[in-house]
């Protein structure tokens, strides 16, 4: 009998897609924590929190704004800002192509939406990130938008509410992406000197350059349950230190325990919490 030819053909790729259970798990509306599956309108009605186990699904920037602000009060600013490609960066594809794809996929010019709004009748400015746009990475546009949001807030004498969701600095803009850290830090300093508050909300994930700049500089810092908030990602820490990572490494709960944040606020209470903070900072009833 002739030997079987190529007994080790790797069929794992086909198998992965052929496994219906796996496919369900990958579905954006299936809860990765308990496996419950939802229609999109169900999830939206529940603020994208799993009604069964409380898992917080990611929320896109525009939907987040709708969840938080008094209906119809949001007016976007600087929506027309777009990234350039200062390095002519090319990894597996050109940066310009990645930007175009991200815009097509998200309908956003970059990973942050800014503007003015009212929350429980208190005026504020918002800077809300969208993880779907290149992992919420911070390049020149995100940095510039955040600074403009600070300037707009201090111009109007109102607090700035920042909602972060980001993997960190945008590598494709090289050193200019790193410079968005000091740039946004300077803007927070100016905001504070103008007597305005920064309320920072960290959502899953807020890592790298975001945690190492404006997101950590809130007068009050709150996080959503389970949000990963670490300077270095778990994979990097594991690789470099070969340390065994605790299961809740870098999670909001750990950050609260170690004194890095003020509170963990479930999404259903976020709007009311922001309303209360805005009233407190405004020093009114």
């Amino acid at each position, binding site marked *: 009998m002739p030997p079987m030819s190529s007994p080790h053909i790797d069929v794992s790729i086909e198998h992965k897609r052929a496994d219906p259970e796996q496919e369900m798990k990958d579905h954006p509306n299936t809860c990765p924590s308990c496996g419950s599956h939802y229609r999109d309108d169900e999830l939206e009605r529940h603020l994208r929190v799993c009604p069964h186990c409380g898992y917080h699904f990611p929320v896109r920037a525009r939907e987040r704004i709708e969840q938080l602000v008094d209906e119809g009060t949001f007016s976007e600013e600087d929506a027309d800002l777009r990234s350039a490609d200062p390095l002519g960066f090319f990894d597996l594809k050109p940066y310009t192509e990645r930007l175009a794809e991200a815009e097509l996929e998200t309908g956003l010019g970059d990973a942050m939406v800014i503007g003015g709004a009212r929350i429980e009748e208190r005026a504020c400015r918002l800077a809300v990130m969208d993880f779907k746009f290149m992992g919420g990475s911070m390049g020149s546009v995100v940095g510039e938008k955040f600074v403009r949001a600070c300037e707009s807030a201090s111009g109007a004498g109102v607090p700035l509410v920042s909602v972060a969701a980001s993997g960190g600095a945008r590598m494709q803009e090289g050193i200019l*992406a*790193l*410079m968005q850290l000091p740039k946004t830090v300077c803007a927070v300093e100016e905001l504070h000197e103008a007597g305005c508050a920064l309320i920072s909300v960290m959502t899953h994930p807020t890592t790298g350059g975001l*945690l190492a700049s404006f997101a950590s500089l809130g007068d009050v810092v709150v996080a959503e349950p389970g949000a990963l908030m670490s300077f270095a990602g778990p994979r990097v820490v594991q690789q470099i230190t070969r340390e065994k990572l605790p299961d809740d490494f870098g999670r909001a709960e750990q950050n609260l325990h170690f004194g890095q944040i003020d509170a963990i606020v479930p999404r259903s209470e976020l709007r009311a919490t922001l309303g209360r903070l805005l009233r407190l900072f405004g020093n009114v009833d």
Partner: protein
Amino acid sequence: MSTEAELPLRERLSKLAGVRLLRGSRLSAETERLQQQLDRLQEEETDEEIWSRVQLARHEDRPYTLDYVERLFDDFFELHGDRGRMDDAAIVTGMGKLAGRTVALIGQQKAREIQERVKRNFGMAYPEGYRKAMRAMELADKHGFPLLTLVDTPGAYPGVAAEQHGQGGAIARSQAVMARVSVPTVTVVIGDGGSGGAVAIALADKVLMQENAMYSVISPEGCASILWRDAEQAPKAAAAFKPDAAHCLQLGVIDGIVPEPAGGAHQDPELAAQLLGEAVEGAFDELDRYEPSELRRARRAKFRAMGVLG
């Protein structure tokens, strides 16, 4: 390289010479060297040249912070500890006389011997290191001492305890203190300018880079393993994000380049220290002309302008 890219570079280089950053007898030789730099830039560095600079920036014989402190400072007194938890040896802080004036110093410290390397944690600071740095910044501000920071780190330490003690927040607050102080501040990247861990102490009025230093958003290896899923592609990653001094100057991220002895700072540490000292003194002399409030305003305005929009 295009003319639009070249013009600001020429402007910066001439301004650099104009502010006497490179003073004294070496002026003509160094101007010539800068001219050579410009000529090289016009040729556009090849991928290999960028990678060889990365290797020089990390060369194990390259002078480290204390090598420069020893040669440039008189009466140096080291300050230890963050007054909270520990003394992080990856960051050296202190005060000493630099060309006759008291200057506060913060510098990241690598080492050569294995035991010393471990003690210095390969130049990778914990949050405690950044808190120690903030102490030195506040000391400088309180007493009106100019602040010099020397950047040389692969990055802030990525460990479990470092995260628990608030690595991200410490880096953010360290920058915030630098944005707040009203004394002249100068940063020189003397080797490895690794990402957030570097920028934590680099929000300065004048940010300079030594000729063969690198300043980058991520290590070439880290970038390669994320974008190409292969750390071996580091030279390719470095060529793509261009961490060398000439490109940083061209992008408006730094204010000047400090020349090194031929072949790199490690070939002649004495001369390297002298050139560094001249550049730092020149920068402080220039900054002395400004009122404290003006310094702070201009510092923030400089960083406000960084970035390129479409």
